[in-house]
């Protein structure tokens, strides 16, 4: 019960983060969903037996299933490696990690929300190249301004 709820909370938080603009939040969502997946594996092993699978002749009646633990252990490390890679992607390139930035995202920077299929189709097939060639400061939205303000304010002196 508690483990199932924990998984649910983690998944909810992860999905919320993944639906955001910045890649960093998407990566954090990925970290949370990895936790959720790992705990689901642990749940599959059963939470009624919680003894550590260590030592000589562990009692099968009270000892936890070791197989999901082995799965989870490697899964954690793999998720870590993927997280590193995703974080690197967030910090690489010319723009910051905002995936809706003026040179990418929703083709021309129009924000149409998380609803599927609701994409601006104005010149969709050809606008990508044109958008890339555009002045990166064209079509700045309030968010963009906000990010610029970040740089200026920083920590108060």
């Amino acid at each position, binding site marked *: 019960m*508690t*483990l*199932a*709820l*924990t998984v649910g*909370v*983690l*998944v*909810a*938080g992860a999905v*919320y983060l*993944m*639906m955001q*603009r*910045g*890649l*960093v939040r*998407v990566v*954090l969502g990925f*970290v*949370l969903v990895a*936790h959720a997946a790992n*705990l*689901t594996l*642990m*749940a599959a*092993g059963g*939470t*009624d037996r*919680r003894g550590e*699978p*260590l030592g000589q002749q*562990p009692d099968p009646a009270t000892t936890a299933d070791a*197989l999901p*633990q082995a799965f*989870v252990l490697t899964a*954690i*490390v*793999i998720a870590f490696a993927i997280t590193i890679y995703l*974080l*690197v992607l967030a*910090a*690489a390139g010319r723009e910051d990690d*905002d*995936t809706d930035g003026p040179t*990418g995202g929703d083709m021309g920077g129009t*924000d149409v929300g*998380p*609803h*599927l299929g609701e994409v601006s*189709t104005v010149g*969709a*097939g050809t606008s*990508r190249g044109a958008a890339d060639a555009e002045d990166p400061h064209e079509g700045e939205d309030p968010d*963009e301004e906000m*990010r610029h303000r*970040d*740089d200026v304010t920083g*920590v108060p*002196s």
Partner: protein
Amino acid sequence: MILLVLVVLTAALAAAAPALARAMGRDAGLVLAGGLLALGLTLGISAPWTLGETVDFSVPWLPVLDVALRLRLDGLSLAFGLLVLLVGALVMAYSARYLGSGPCSAFYGLMVFFAAAMLVLVLADDLVLLFVAWEATTLCSFFLITLSGPAGQQPAVRTLLLTAGGGLALLAAVATTVVATGTTQLSQALASPVWSEDPLLASTVALLVMVAAFTKSAQFPFHSWLPDAMAASTPVSAYLHAAAMVKAGIYLLLRFSSTFADVPVWYVGLVGVGLLTALMGALYAMQRTDLKALLAYSTVSQLGFLVATTGIGTSYAVTAAVAHTVAHALFKSALFMLVGVVDHQAGTREIPRLRGLRRAMPVTGVAMAVAALSMAGVPPLLGFISKEKMFAALLEFPGPTWAGVLAGGVGVAAAVLTFAYSGRLVLGAFGGPAEEEPAEGLRRPREAAPSFLVPALVPAAAGVVLGLWGSAVAPLVTTGADAAAGATTTGRGSVTDADLSLWHGLNPELLMSATAIALGTVLVLARHRVDRALVGRRLFPLTGVGVVEGFRTGSIAAGARVSALTGSDAPRRHLAVPLVVLLVLAGVGLTQLDGLPTPQADLTRGVDWLLLALVVVGVVVVVRATSRLGALVVVGLVGFVVALWFVVLGAMDVALTQLLVEVLTVVVGVLVLRRLPRHFAPAPRHRTVGAAALAVGAGAAATAAVLAMTGRRGLSPAGEFFLARAEEETGGTNVVNTILVDFRALDTFGELTVLGIAGVAVVAALSSRRLLPDRAPRTWREGSPVVSPGESAVVARTLARVLAPLTLVVSLWLLWRGHDAPGGGFIGALVGAATLALLFLVARSDSSAPVKVPAALLIGAGVVLCVAVGLAGLVVEGSFLEPFFIDVGDSYVTTALVFDVGVYLTVVGVVVVALQQLGGVLLPGTGPGEDEPEHRMALEEVLDRKESAALAPSSEGAGPGQEQSGQERSGLERSGLERSGQERSGPPGGADGSAGRERTTGGAAR
């Protein structure tokens, strides 16, 4: 064998053509013409001229699929093969004078390759080979049309669309035939009894073959490409229209004629579409003023005749079709080449602009008249004989008499128009006052050189000779028609002898010919009035080219619309799709839940609720966080709680791993975040609501799934086995570790490889895209110890000096004891990596941080070590990665430990990669070391203009010469330099000079 030699030689000629053309220029055409002529003569000599005899050849190609390079020469192949090679030879010789002095290697190469493809097509006795050759001709024509330059590109694409579409129909026909008849051999498949047993199958394949042939032979409604393809140069058109491309469709129809002659779809479709096309093409030809366009539509019309006659299917009709194929090849190649001569000499081929050619170019005029009369069906030319035979064939239309009369009537109507446009062609070019001056901007035409004219005169003259001396071509037509009518395979009556004489007595077809000529003459005499009525008038609201172009642009637009649905860079669009699908699946799954086992007792304990509460708090804080750093830290804390979960669930190894990974994730995350804005971009409300709704749904579904699908069974048999046998089998008492390195070592090895690749991918990604510059706040008070890494980390650095050796030892100890107690390669490595991270964090500067281990070497060594252990297991125990024991004194070591060392090395390597790449560590041999001015330069380059403007004036040694060297450095060095220069060097916003001073003192301290 002779067939293979012929095909190979033609292909070799095609391969040699470009080199020949480079060496000889346009004169290469003469050599190639000689080659094709020789090949044609060889084909003629080696051919079986007796009824039913064939030459066969076969080598296996894809034996599993029964596909073979089967070649078969029968009468039909012979007729078409000779046309391909001999007309090809004429066109090549013509090209040698037609082409300019420009490069022509592509032209010659493609033309001869075209001939080779056509030859294979007509010789193929394998359905797959037939299809391949068919597609090769499609591609050849496409490339030949594009050769004519930008004007040819749109027509070439339209041609490809139509003909390749027809190729798909042929592919479907081939596949269906192979499946239905169980053989890929064409002759066997055609003779198969399934066609008569299954009328639906026969109709389907007949329809597919028809569609394929209609696209290739430009029949309605696919006729538009042929006039469109006129954009190609004249030799290409001559070959395309006379012997190659369009004749492939006719060949296909004739080849399948014996099989489908009795299928209603076949004969009704062929006769109907053929006659419609004949009439329509002729009508369009009447409207053209461009001689070449006129000829193009005349080809459409003549092909219509051929298709209709083939559709009749009787042996007489097939004879007529073969005869007219030969006649058409002769007069059409002559006409195209002669129009090319006119174009070349007079500078135009527009009828209104052509003047005075009658006197200036008499030979050309006579030749064109002769060829055109053959096309018009005037005796004593070959075209008369073949057309008359076609009239007679049309009257034989299977079905009621009125249908035959109707078919014949339409045929005569088309022939009337044929006569009329033939007259327009000749009189339009050579009629009119002979003395008139040429139209403005054109030179005075002269007769062309003999070498230019001869290739065009030959087929025109052949039309006369063969018309008068029909018995010369009769054997070819006879054997061809015999093969097409299937005299040998289906037992139909043999043609015995195609009577190609001029006079057969008074009969209906003579009357039809006379009518056509008489009415045609009337139209020619009234040609000025007819022209006024027809030229430039739009007869139908749609044009074929318009329809094809509409389809082309429409499909591109539709594709753009479809791709726009997913064509976004925003990850959430791509992530939302599977999430929504999963939610739907979960919803469906909930309704199907039934009869689940009761849950086990004691699944939940008191402490769980505390952990749940902590996770809830953490997640709520994370999703509400506005600062990137805050969110990262809280996610790390959530990870700690998850580690606690593992502890209470009895998974100590997992908990340790989780804990260490969380620490390292935060370290790596911080290295990334300093290059990004502090705060997240605020999201609009509607998105927040949408994301929250999806999140709640997903969370609920996940909870429901875990509740429904877990905790309802006892220990799994596998789990029981591991608990019971781990020590006995492996000597280890840490069951989790024994699973990782003993029982499931191959899995672990795979996962290790994923780790290594992730590490390599990080390096690869950053070698192609630079990291963003640092955004560290620059408004700290000057002189604050916080801004000086050298001073602010004194305590930590001192501590690290003591701790680092200790933790390194612990790390190795964890690795060592992992088999029996919590620890192992993963955990030990993470502790070691955490030590390196600590050393990195307390270092005086990024560039000097002591994590200069060659990371790629670590990763590679780890993977290689694991492979070596695996191979050792293979050798000693007979199974890859199976561990074994090595005695060391009175103790022993298991190779699983060595495997774990490999794990250790790889994991450490991945973390070191992250620290080095993101942390700006200067690796030995890659950077300029402590070269101060270059530091400043690299810094300047990466800052945006505003910032550098504030910095530059007082920066020392930033000369233009060094700027150059700064720009040439690799992104890797630069990312390291810019960071060391920018962040660790002090408060650039405060005082410009202080940055340089800080570096200097830093250097002195070192």
